[in-house]
Protein backbone atom coordinates (compact mmCIF):
# COMPACT_ATOMS: atom_id res chain seq x y z
CA UNK A 1 0.00 0.00 0.00
CA UNK A 2 2.71 2.47 1.09
CA UNK A 3 4.91 1.36 -1.81
CA UNK A 4 2.10 2.01 -4.31
CA UNK A 5 1.42 5.39 -2.73
CA UNK A 6 5.08 6.42 -2.89
CA UNK A 7 5.38 5.16 -6.43
CA UNK A 8 2.45 7.25 -7.68
CA UNK A 9 3.67 9.85 -10.21
CA UNK A 10 1.94 12.69 -8.35
CA UNK A 11 3.26 11.63 -4.92
CA UNK A 12 6.51 13.70 -5.00
CA UNK A 13 4.78 16.94 -6.00
CA UNK A 14 2.18 16.50 -3.25
CA UNK A 15 4.69 15.42 -0.58
CA UNK A 16 7.03 18.33 -1.24
CA UNK A 17 4.61 20.88 0.27
CA UNK A 18 4.17 19.50 3.83
CA UNK A 19 7.80 18.46 4.13
CA UNK A 20 8.93 21.92 2.99
CA UNK A 21 6.69 23.58 5.58
CA UNK A 22 7.98 21.27 8.33
CA UNK A 23 11.58 21.90 7.37
CA UNK A 24 11.10 25.66 7.18
CA UNK A 25 9.46 25.68 10.61
CA UNK A 26 12.37 23.64 11.99
CA UNK A 27 14.96 26.01 10.56
CA UNK A 28 13.06 29.02 11.85
CA UNK A 29 13.16 27.58 15.39
CA UNK A 30 16.85 26.80 15.03
CA UNK A 31 17.62 30.33 13.86
CA UNK A 32 15.59 31.73 16.71
CA UNK A 33 17.58 29.67 19.21
CA UNK A 34 20.87 30.76 17.67
CA UNK A 35 19.92 34.40 17.34
CA UNK A 36 18.13 35.16 20.60
CA UNK A 37 20.43 37.07 22.95
CA UNK A 38 20.47 36.56 26.69
CA UNK A 39 19.04 39.17 28.99
CA UNK A 40 21.90 41.40 30.05
CA UNK A 41 22.76 43.03 33.30
CA UNK A 42 24.90 46.11 33.67
CA UNK A 43 28.30 45.51 35.21
CA UNK A 44 29.70 47.98 37.75
CA UNK A 45 31.13 50.98 35.93
CA UNK A 46 34.12 50.89 38.30
CA UNK A 47 36.05 47.81 39.40
CA UNK A 48 34.43 46.69 42.66
CA UNK A 49 36.66 46.63 45.70
CA UNK A 50 35.26 43.28 46.77
CA UNK A 51 35.75 41.74 43.32
CA UNK A 52 37.55 38.67 44.56
CA UNK A 53 40.32 39.31 42.03
CA UNK A 54 43.19 41.74 42.53
CA UNK A 55 43.27 44.48 39.90
CA UNK A 56 46.53 44.34 37.93
CA UNK A 57 48.91 47.26 38.38
CA UNK A 58 49.29 49.44 35.30
CA UNK A 59 47.35 47.13 33.03
CA UNK A 60 43.76 46.77 31.90
CA UNK A 61 41.86 43.74 33.18
CA UNK A 62 39.82 41.51 30.89
CA UNK A 63 37.32 39.15 32.48
CA UNK A 64 35.47 36.42 30.60
CA UNK A 65 32.87 34.41 32.47
CA UNK A 66 32.27 30.92 31.15
CA UNK A 67 29.97 28.01 31.83
CA UNK A 68 32.40 25.07 31.75
CA UNK A 69 29.93 22.85 29.87
CA UNK A 70 28.52 25.44 27.44
CA UNK A 71 29.21 24.36 23.85
CA UNK A 72 28.43 27.85 22.52
CA UNK A 73 31.34 29.36 24.46
CA UNK A 74 33.96 27.68 22.28
CA UNK A 75 33.24 30.39 19.76
CA UNK A 76 33.78 33.04 22.47
CA UNK A 77 37.25 31.66 23.19
CA UNK A 78 38.09 31.50 19.49
CA UNK A 79 36.92 35.07 18.99
CA UNK A 80 38.85 36.21 22.06
CA UNK A 81 41.98 34.55 20.69
CA UNK A 82 41.41 36.34 17.40
CA UNK A 83 40.99 39.75 19.08
CA UNK A 84 44.04 39.32 21.32
CA UNK A 85 46.20 38.34 18.37
CA UNK A 86 45.44 41.76 16.81
CA UNK A 87 46.23 43.80 19.92
CA UNK A 88 49.74 45.29 20.26
CA UNK A 89 51.71 43.57 23.01
CA UNK A 90 51.95 46.80 25.01
CA UNK A 91 48.15 47.08 25.12
CA UNK A 92 47.50 43.49 26.21
CA UNK A 93 45.41 43.25 29.39
CA UNK A 94 45.60 40.77 32.20
CA UNK A 95 43.15 38.07 31.14
CA UNK A 96 41.02 36.16 33.60
CA UNK A 97 38.94 33.28 32.29
CA UNK A 98 36.47 32.53 35.06
CA UNK A 99 34.75 29.17 34.91
CA UNK A 100 31.61 29.38 36.99
CA UNK A 101 30.97 26.10 38.78
CA UNK A 102 27.90 25.25 40.79
CA UNK A 103 28.25 23.41 44.08
CA UNK A 104 25.52 21.13 42.68
CA UNK A 105 27.90 20.04 39.91
CA UNK A 106 31.21 19.33 41.65
CA UNK A 107 32.17 16.96 38.82
CA UNK A 108 32.74 19.88 36.46
CA UNK A 109 36.49 19.55 36.40
CA UNK A 110 38.40 20.40 33.29
CA UNK A 111 36.52 19.54 30.13
CA UNK A 112 36.81 20.68 26.55
CA UNK A 113 36.33 24.39 27.24
CA UNK A 114 38.88 24.42 30.07
CA UNK A 115 41.42 22.74 27.79
CA UNK A 116 40.64 25.11 24.93
CA UNK A 117 41.15 28.08 27.25
CA UNK A 118 44.73 26.94 27.85
CA UNK A 119 45.42 27.94 24.23
CA UNK A 120 44.98 31.63 25.03
CA UNK A 121 48.43 33.04 25.79
CA UNK A 122 49.00 34.42 29.28
CA UNK A 123 45.37 33.88 30.30
CA UNK A 124 44.68 32.97 33.91
CA UNK A 125 42.14 30.16 34.19
CA UNK A 126 40.31 29.92 37.43
CA UNK A 127 37.17 28.42 38.94
CA UNK A 128 34.50 30.70 40.29
CA UNK A 129 32.77 28.48 42.84
CA UNK A 130 29.05 29.09 42.92
CA UNK A 131 29.50 32.22 40.79
CA UNK A 132 30.60 34.49 43.66
CA UNK A 133 32.80 36.62 41.39
CA UNK A 134 30.25 36.51 38.53
CA UNK A 135 27.60 37.98 40.82
CA UNK A 136 29.85 40.93 41.72
CA UNK A 137 30.26 41.72 38.04
CA UNK A 138 26.59 41.10 37.19
CA UNK A 139 27.59 38.32 34.77
CA UNK A 140 24.75 35.87 34.19
CA UNK A 141 25.56 34.34 30.81
CA UNK A 142 28.47 32.31 29.53
CA UNK A 143 30.64 34.41 27.26
CA UNK A 144 30.07 37.63 29.23
CA UNK A 145 33.17 39.71 28.61
CA UNK A 146 34.25 42.76 30.61
CA UNK A 147 37.20 45.06 30.06
CA UNK A 148 38.33 47.49 32.75
CA UNK A 149 40.90 50.12 31.86
CA UNK A 150 43.98 51.03 33.87
CA UNK A 151 41.87 53.52 35.81
CA UNK A 152 39.53 50.65 36.79
CA UNK A 153 36.74 52.08 34.63
CA UNK A 154 34.55 49.83 32.55
CA UNK A 155 35.54 50.07 28.86
CA UNK A 156 33.61 47.19 27.37
CA UNK A 157 30.91 44.75 28.33
CA UNK A 158 28.88 42.24 26.38
CA UNK A 159 29.39 39.26 24.12
CA UNK A 160 31.99 38.76 21.43
CA UNK A 161 30.12 36.39 19.10
CA UNK A 162 27.59 37.31 16.42
CA UNK A 163 25.11 34.67 17.49
CA UNK A 164 24.93 31.63 19.72
CA UNK A 165 28.14 29.65 19.33
CA UNK A 166 29.01 31.08 15.95
CA UNK A 167 32.44 32.26 14.99
CA UNK A 168 32.90 35.12 12.56
CA UNK A 169 33.13 38.89 12.39
CA UNK A 170 30.85 40.59 14.91
CA UNK A 171 30.25 43.89 16.59
CA UNK A 172 31.30 42.73 20.08
CA UNK A 173 34.71 41.51 19.00
CA UNK A 174 35.31 44.71 17.01
CA UNK A 175 34.32 46.96 19.91
CA UNK A 176 36.48 44.99 22.35
CA UNK A 177 39.43 45.34 19.99
CA UNK A 178 38.82 49.07 19.64
CA UNK A 179 38.56 49.48 23.43
CA UNK A 180 41.83 47.57 23.92
CA UNK A 181 43.64 49.58 21.27
CA UNK A 182 42.39 53.02 22.23
CA UNK A 183 41.74 52.63 25.95
CA UNK A 184 38.38 54.37 25.41
CA UNK A 185 34.98 53.18 26.49
CA UNK A 186 32.99 51.23 23.86
CA UNK A 187 29.68 52.77 22.79
CA UNK A 188 27.16 50.29 24.19
CA UNK A 189 27.03 46.84 25.63
CA UNK A 190 26.90 44.25 22.88
CA UNK A 191 24.50 41.38 22.74
CA UNK A 192 25.45 38.21 24.49
CA UNK A 193 24.69 34.63 23.40
CA UNK A 194 25.32 31.58 25.56
CA UNK A 195 24.16 29.30 28.34
CA UNK A 196 23.08 30.74 31.67
CA UNK A 197 25.86 30.57 34.24
CA UNK A 198 25.44 28.24 37.21
CA UNK A 199 25.20 30.81 39.97
CA UNK A 200 24.18 29.38 43.32
CA UNK A 201 23.22 32.60 45.09
CA UNK A 202 22.24 35.22 42.48
CA UNK A 203 21.17 37.79 45.04
CA UNK A 204 24.46 37.65 46.91
CA UNK A 205 26.67 40.63 46.13
CA UNK A 206 24.18 42.22 43.74
CA UNK A 207 24.01 45.96 43.76
Amino acid at each position, binding site marked *: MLGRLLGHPAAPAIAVIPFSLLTMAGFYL*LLRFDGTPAQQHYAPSLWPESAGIAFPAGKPALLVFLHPMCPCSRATLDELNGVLSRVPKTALPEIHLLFVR*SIRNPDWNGGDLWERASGIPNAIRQWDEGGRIAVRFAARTSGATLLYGVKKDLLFQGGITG*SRGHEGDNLGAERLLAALETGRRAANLTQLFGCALAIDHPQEGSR
Partner: protein
Amino acid sequence: MNYRFRISDSPALTAQASRNFHALVRKLAVRADLILAWLLAFEWPALVISAVVLSPFTWDGATSSLNPHLLAAMLAGPFFIVPSILLALRHPGRHLTRHVLAVSQILVSIVLIDVTNGRIESHFHVFGSLAILAFYRDWRVLITASAVTAAHHFISGYWWPQSVYGVLTISPWRWVEHAFWVLFEDFFLILMNRTSISEMWTVATREAQLSWGAYFDFLTGLPNRRALHERFEALTNRREAFRGAVMFIDLDRFKQANDTGPHHWG
Protein backbone atom coordinates in the same frame (compact mmCIF):
# COMPACT_ATOMS: atom_id res chain seq x y z
CA MET B 1 33.73 18.22 -37.35
CA ASN B 2 30.24 19.61 -36.88
CA TYR B 3 28.06 16.54 -36.58
CA ARG B 4 24.96 18.54 -35.80
CA PHE B 5 25.29 20.29 -39.13
CA ARG B 6 26.04 17.08 -41.01
CA ILE B 7 23.03 15.19 -39.75
CA SER B 8 20.68 18.10 -40.12
CA ASP B 9 19.85 16.86 -43.59
CA SER B 10 18.51 13.63 -42.16
CA PRO B 11 15.54 14.03 -39.81
CA ALA B 12 15.72 10.32 -38.94
CA LEU B 13 19.33 10.65 -37.85
CA THR B 14 18.62 13.81 -35.88
CA ALA B 15 15.74 12.10 -34.12
CA GLN B 16 17.90 9.09 -33.30
CA ALA B 17 20.71 11.33 -32.01
CA SER B 18 18.20 13.20 -29.86
CA ARG B 19 16.86 9.90 -28.45
CA ASN B 20 20.42 8.75 -27.67
CA PHE B 21 21.20 12.09 -26.04
CA HIS B 22 18.15 12.05 -23.79
CA ALA B 23 18.84 8.44 -22.83
CA LEU B 24 22.36 9.49 -21.79
CA VAL B 25 21.02 12.45 -19.81
CA ARG B 26 18.51 10.27 -18.01
CA LYS B 27 21.11 7.61 -17.23
CA LEU B 28 23.34 10.33 -15.81
CA ALA B 29 20.50 11.80 -13.73
CA VAL B 30 19.54 8.39 -12.33
CA ARG B 31 23.15 7.74 -11.36
CA ALA B 32 23.50 11.20 -9.77
CA ASP B 33 20.22 10.64 -7.86
CA LEU B 34 21.64 7.43 -6.46
CA ILE B 35 24.95 9.08 -5.49
CA LEU B 36 23.06 11.88 -3.70
CA ALA B 37 20.79 9.35 -1.94
CA TRP B 38 23.81 7.42 -0.65
CA LEU B 39 25.54 10.62 0.37
CA LEU B 40 22.50 11.84 2.31
CA ALA B 41 22.17 8.41 3.96
CA PHE B 42 25.76 8.75 5.14
CA GLU B 43 25.46 12.39 6.16
CA TRP B 44 22.49 11.96 8.49
CA PRO B 45 24.26 9.71 11.06
CA ALA B 46 27.41 11.80 10.60
CA LEU B 47 25.42 14.93 11.54
CA VAL B 48 23.93 13.26 14.62
CA ILE B 49 27.32 11.94 15.76
CA SER B 50 28.90 15.38 15.27
CA ALA B 51 26.13 17.00 17.31
CA VAL B 52 26.46 14.39 20.09
CA VAL B 53 30.20 14.97 20.27
CA LEU B 54 30.26 18.77 19.86
CA SER B 55 27.10 20.14 21.43
CA PRO B 56 24.88 17.51 23.04
CA PHE B 57 23.36 19.76 25.69
CA THR B 58 22.54 23.34 26.36
CA TRP B 59 22.75 24.57 29.94
CA ASP B 60 20.61 26.74 32.10
CA GLY B 61 22.81 27.08 35.13
CA ALA B 62 23.26 23.65 36.64
CA THR B 63 20.58 21.92 34.62
CA SER B 64 20.93 20.71 31.08
CA SER B 65 18.55 20.00 28.24
CA LEU B 66 18.92 18.60 24.75
CA ASN B 67 20.73 21.10 22.54
CA PRO B 68 18.54 22.29 19.64
CA HIS B 69 21.54 21.60 17.36
CA LEU B 70 21.34 17.90 18.25
CA LEU B 71 17.58 17.99 17.85
CA ALA B 72 18.01 19.58 14.41
CA ALA B 73 20.51 16.91 13.39
CA MET B 74 18.12 14.15 14.50
CA LEU B 75 15.01 15.71 12.90
CA ALA B 76 16.86 16.36 9.63
CA GLY B 77 16.28 12.66 8.91
CA PRO B 78 12.47 12.49 8.99
CA PHE B 79 12.01 16.11 7.87
CA PHE B 80 13.99 16.12 4.64
CA ILE B 81 16.75 13.49 4.37
CA VAL B 82 14.62 10.32 4.38
CA PRO B 83 11.88 11.80 2.10
CA SER B 84 14.62 12.86 -0.36
CA ILE B 85 16.19 9.40 -0.34
CA LEU B 86 12.76 7.81 -0.92
CA LEU B 87 12.16 10.18 -3.80
CA ALA B 88 15.51 9.26 -5.35
CA LEU B 89 14.76 5.55 -5.05
CA ARG B 90 11.12 5.68 -6.19
CA HIS B 91 11.30 8.44 -8.81
CA PRO B 92 14.85 8.52 -10.15
CA GLY B 93 15.71 10.72 -13.11
CA ARG B 94 12.84 13.17 -12.62
CA HIS B 95 13.49 16.89 -12.54
CA LEU B 96 11.68 17.34 -9.22
CA THR B 97 13.83 14.61 -7.65
CA ARG B 98 17.12 16.29 -8.46
CA HIS B 99 15.92 19.70 -7.20
CA VAL B 100 14.64 18.17 -3.95
CA LEU B 101 17.97 16.37 -3.50
CA ALA B 102 19.84 19.63 -4.19
CA VAL B 103 17.82 21.47 -1.54
CA SER B 104 18.36 18.61 0.95
CA GLN B 105 22.09 18.59 0.36
CA ILE B 106 22.35 22.32 1.05
CA LEU B 107 20.13 21.99 4.14
CA VAL B 108 22.59 19.36 5.40
CA SER B 109 25.36 21.95 4.93
CA ILE B 110 23.36 24.46 6.96
CA VAL B 111 22.72 22.01 9.81
CA LEU B 112 26.38 20.98 9.74
CA ILE B 113 27.51 24.61 10.02
CA ASP B 114 25.18 25.00 13.00
CA VAL B 115 26.25 21.74 14.64
CA THR B 116 29.93 22.67 14.35
CA ASN B 117 29.11 26.08 15.88
CA GLY B 118 29.71 27.97 12.67
CA ARG B 119 33.25 26.78 12.12
CA ILE B 120 34.57 28.46 9.01
CA GLU B 121 35.87 25.10 7.75
CA SER B 122 32.38 23.59 7.76
CA HIS B 123 31.32 26.18 5.14
CA PHE B 124 33.42 24.20 2.64
CA HIS B 125 30.64 21.59 2.73
CA VAL B 126 28.53 23.99 0.64
CA PHE B 127 31.18 24.19 -2.07
CA GLY B 128 31.72 20.42 -2.03
CA SER B 129 27.95 19.93 -2.34
CA LEU B 130 27.78 22.20 -5.38
CA ALA B 131 30.54 20.18 -7.02
CA ILE B 132 28.60 16.94 -6.36
CA LEU B 133 25.39 18.51 -7.70
CA ALA B 134 27.28 19.35 -10.90
CA PHE B 135 27.17 15.59 -11.61
CA TYR B 136 23.69 16.24 -13.00
CA ARG B 137 25.16 18.55 -15.65
CA ASP B 138 22.00 20.61 -15.20
CA TRP B 139 22.60 24.30 -14.42
CA ARG B 140 19.11 24.64 -12.95
CA VAL B 141 20.05 22.29 -10.08
CA LEU B 142 23.03 24.52 -9.22
CA ILE B 143 20.81 27.59 -9.26
CA THR B 144 18.32 25.91 -6.90
CA ALA B 145 21.10 24.97 -4.49
CA SER B 146 22.65 28.43 -4.65
CA ALA B 147 19.29 30.11 -4.09
CA VAL B 148 18.77 28.06 -0.90
CA THR B 149 22.27 29.03 0.31
CA ALA B 150 21.68 32.73 -0.38
CA ALA B 151 18.20 32.62 1.20
CA HIS B 152 19.61 31.05 4.36
CA HIS B 153 22.31 33.70 4.65
CA PHE B 154 19.81 36.47 4.05
CA ILE B 155 17.14 35.12 6.43
CA SER B 156 19.61 34.31 9.21
CA GLY B 157 21.12 37.77 8.76
CA TYR B 158 17.66 39.22 9.15
CA TRP B 159 16.73 37.20 12.22
CA TRP B 160 20.02 37.72 13.96
CA PRO B 161 19.53 40.53 16.41
CA GLN B 162 22.10 42.92 14.96
CA SER B 163 19.87 43.24 11.92
CA VAL B 164 16.55 43.00 13.72
CA TYR B 165 17.35 45.79 16.16
CA GLY B 166 19.02 47.93 13.56
CA VAL B 167 22.33 48.08 15.37
CA LEU B 168 25.22 48.84 13.06
CA THR B 169 26.95 45.62 12.05
CA ILE B 170 30.42 45.09 10.72
CA SER B 171 29.05 44.16 7.29
CA PRO B 172 25.28 43.98 6.87
CA TRP B 173 25.80 42.80 3.29
CA ARG B 174 27.98 39.87 4.29
CA TRP B 175 25.38 37.47 2.91
CA VAL B 176 25.91 39.05 -0.54
CA GLU B 177 29.63 38.38 -0.25
CA HIS B 178 28.98 34.71 0.62
CA ALA B 179 26.48 34.40 -2.22
CA PHE B 180 29.05 35.87 -4.59
CA TRP B 181 31.54 33.11 -3.84
CA VAL B 182 28.84 30.50 -4.40
CA LEU B 183 28.04 32.13 -7.77
CA PHE B 184 31.74 32.23 -8.55
CA GLU B 185 31.87 28.43 -8.23
CA ASP B 186 28.56 28.07 -10.08
CA PHE B 187 29.96 29.99 -13.04
CA PHE B 188 32.79 27.53 -13.59
CA LEU B 189 30.64 24.47 -12.89
CA ILE B 190 28.03 25.64 -15.39
CA LEU B 191 30.79 26.33 -17.92
CA MET B 192 32.09 22.76 -17.44
CA ASN B 193 28.57 21.40 -17.67
CA ARG B 194 28.02 23.12 -21.00
CA THR B 195 31.19 21.52 -22.36
CA SER B 196 30.11 18.12 -21.05
CA ILE B 197 26.65 18.49 -22.57
CA SER B 198 28.20 19.38 -25.91
CA GLU B 199 30.41 16.26 -25.68
CA MET B 200 27.40 14.12 -24.79
CA TRP B 201 25.59 15.44 -27.85
CA THR B 202 28.61 14.52 -29.99
CA VAL B 203 28.65 10.99 -28.55
CA ALA B 204 24.90 10.64 -29.14
CA THR B 205 25.28 11.82 -32.74
CA ARG B 206 28.18 9.46 -33.43
CA GLU B 207 26.23 6.54 -32.00
CA ALA B 208 23.28 7.47 -34.23
CA GLN B 209 25.51 7.72 -37.25
CA LEU B 210 27.22 4.43 -36.55
CA SER B 211 24.00 2.52 -36.00
CA TRP B 212 22.36 4.19 -39.00
CA GLY B 213 25.43 3.61 -41.19
CA ALA B 214 25.41 -0.08 -40.32
CA TYR B 215 22.00 -0.55 -41.96
CA PHE B 216 21.72 2.23 -44.57
CA ASP B 217 23.76 3.41 -47.46
CA PHE B 218 25.18 6.89 -46.73
CA LEU B 219 24.98 7.99 -50.37
CA THR B 220 21.46 6.90 -51.26
CA GLY B 221 19.90 6.57 -47.81
CA LEU B 222 18.56 3.16 -48.83
CA PRO B 223 18.69 0.05 -46.60
CA ASN B 224 21.76 -2.05 -47.27
CA ARG B 225 22.42 -5.80 -47.47
CA ARG B 226 22.68 -6.20 -43.68
CA ALA B 227 19.36 -4.44 -43.17
CA LEU B 228 17.78 -6.79 -45.70
CA HIS B 229 19.17 -9.86 -43.95
CA GLU B 230 17.99 -8.72 -40.57
CA ARG B 231 14.56 -7.80 -41.90
CA PHE B 232 14.25 -11.25 -43.39
CA GLU B 233 15.42 -12.91 -40.23
CA ALA B 234 12.93 -10.93 -38.18
CA LEU B 235 10.11 -11.84 -40.52
CA THR B 236 10.95 -15.53 -40.69
CA ASN B 237 11.47 -15.81 -36.91
CA ARG B 238 7.97 -14.59 -36.17
CA ARG B 239 5.67 -17.11 -34.54
CA GLU B 240 2.89 -16.73 -37.05
CA ALA B 241 3.53 -17.98 -40.53
CA PHE B 242 5.17 -15.46 -42.80
CA ARG B 243 2.92 -14.44 -45.60
CA GLY B 244 4.32 -12.15 -48.21
CA ALA B 245 6.19 -11.83 -51.43
CA VAL B 246 9.70 -10.80 -52.29
CA MET B 247 10.17 -8.83 -55.43
CA PHE B 248 13.58 -8.65 -56.97
CA ILE B 249 14.29 -6.17 -59.72
CA ASP B 250 17.53 -6.44 -61.62
CA LEU B 251 18.92 -4.73 -64.64
CA ASP B 252 21.31 -6.67 -66.77
CA ARG B 253 24.80 -5.19 -66.91
CA PHE B 254 23.67 -2.19 -64.77
CA LYS B 255 27.06 -1.87 -63.08
CA GLN B 256 28.90 -1.88 -66.37
CA ALA B 257 26.60 0.83 -67.72
CA ASN B 258 26.82 2.83 -64.51
CA ASP B 259 30.60 2.70 -64.45
CA THR B 260 31.01 3.88 -68.01
CA GLY B 261 28.19 6.11 -69.14
CA PRO B 262 27.41 8.28 -66.06
CA HIS B 263 31.13 8.83 -65.33
CA HIS B 264 31.67 10.03 -68.80
CA TRP B 265 28.57 12.23 -68.88
CA GLY B 266 29.64 13.72 -65.60
